[in-house]
């Protein structure tokens, strides 16, 4: 479907809704996963993102691409999920139990599922750096688009991106040295 199609849509029919999910579903899921590091949360967030997009498509005016719009919603919903007391509690419990049993348990589970070791390094980044790096490199969003989505200045985006790259380069070199 052409980009302009979404711009002038007031209501989404079933076919458009399905098309939106087929085209951008995996992108949305991946971002939710990279933000939260949790499979089940990524499922829930993806569902919320598309339901919200379905309800709010009339407000999309094409200031950005539909993909960028969806990714912005994904990022915001992911942050909300991460900040809820429930998730914080679950994460804290998980962290404590991981610390108590085996320090590398979480790492082992993730390593099995990840397509490349580089993603381990990405997931080790602090959230603020991780989201900027992923949006810029994986989703090819410009610093301006990221600044708009995150509601921060372009300068902050650039600074976070530089820090993320520095950390990634160090981490990547270290893991290469072990091989």
């Amino acid at each position, binding site marked *: 479907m052409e980009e302009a199609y979404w711009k002038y849509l007031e209501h989404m029919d*079933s076919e458009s*809704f*399905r098309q939106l*999910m087929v085209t951008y*579903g*995996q992108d*949305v*899921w*991946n971002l939710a*996963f*990279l933000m939260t590091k949790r*499979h089940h949360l990524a*499922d829930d967030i*993806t*569902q919320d993102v*598309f*339901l*919200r997009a379905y*309800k*709010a498509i009339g*407000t*999309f*005016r094409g*200031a*950005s691409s539909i993909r960028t719009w969806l990714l912005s919603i994904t990022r*915001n919903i992911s*942050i*909300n999920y*991460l*900040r809820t*007391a429930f998730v*914080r509690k679950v994460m804290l419990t998980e*962290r404590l139990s991981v610390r108590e049993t085996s320090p590398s348990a979480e790492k082992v589970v993730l390593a099995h*599922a*990840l*397509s*490349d070791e*580089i*993603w381990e*390094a*990405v997931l080790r980044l*602090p959230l603020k750096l991780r989201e900027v*790096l*992923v949006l810029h*490199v*994986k989703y090819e969003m410009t610093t301006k688009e990221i600044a708009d989505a995150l*509601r*921060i*200045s372009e*300068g*902050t985006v*650039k*600074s*976070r991106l530089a*820090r993320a*790259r520095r*950390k*990634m*380069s160090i981490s*990547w070199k270290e893991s290469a040295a072990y091989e």
Partner: protein
Amino acid sequence: MSDKTPDWYQKLKGEPLVEKTFTVDSIRRIEQKRAEWEKRGKARTNHIRRVFVMCAASILLVLLLGISLEHDRLGKWVSDIGSTWSTEPGSITPPAGKPGPDAVPPDTIGPDTAEPEPFDPDQTETDNQTQKPDPTQTDGRVHVKRMDGLLMEYLPFNTEEVQSISLWNNRIGEEIIIPDEREYVITQALNWLDIAKARVEEAAGSEPDLKLRFHLKNHVYAIPYNPDNNALDLGGGQYYADDRTLLLIKSLMDPNSRLAVLDQTLEQARVPAEDGSSDESKLPDWEKLKIDGKDYNSWEMELKGMAFDSETLYYDSVIERVDGVREYGQGRIIQLSRLIVFLNSDYKTTDGVGVGLSEEEVLQLLGMPNHRTQTCWSYATGDYLTFHLYFEAGFVKMMALSQPA
């Protein structure tokens, strides 16, 4: 930032997980949810329609009963009114298109409904000089009748298309432009406001003096804002704005107030340091980051038991409930959304870090911060930056503990 693309960039273009995780089943599950949601929406609409029809029928029945019982008296009253307007000497017949004596005055805020104020020759010259014409007269009034959902879904404009935002003060006839870099505070507060959860239970009756004006390419929308209770008037009711909106508007309206100073300090701390310095390799001992022996959670509990000097309610879109910006101990502690700020040297960390210390002293006691902006040093506990020092002219101006998130 170096322009050379690192070799690992290409690897990040691919999928992070081995298996495809968004499948046909995922699509079906979401479609099912959408269908359930629509069904609920239709059921609610039908219910509202049924209630409306029943109410209308009841009113009609009561009217018919009243008319049949009071037929004679009503007839006399109607004929009296007729004679007043048409035959009584000296009476004034209302001209066509003008409201009668009991007509309700037009809504002066709604678009194109306002009538210009008649010229008052008794108005003083000073009044004429200070009272600028009200530009909000032709603004589109945001009127939300929904009872639930996020405001972003029902605003008559897209916040992405807002070119500028201003604050109109009707009392003194002045307009303040909200700086570009702060606009996100307002748009974010609007977008994430939950209509059901942010509603003010006992809203003030009078029209607020302040209006937030949203300037789009060809139109301006206005939302009245009540600074006394930090509430946005959306026509159908008043709704609490978030804490950052409260601070921003305090900063614009009353720049010397405690909350305004806090807003300015927090805003300044957002500006990244020129070298973007950050080092999370060394985490300080988390015991060293407690203030008076307490971390954020302990302080939160402690403050619950303390009497506050003032409280202004706000809606927190993250935890999705109404909470309060509270000042304790004559402004020595201010509690915001997930942030407790200490403004006085009475409070110190175990090593004695507190308000008034110099940067050098802090470095000696706590070491390098894990993150630094132009005026704020932050230290991490675990994955999160939770202890913050805000500097002014090289000295700690205030300290804060934030909820790990």
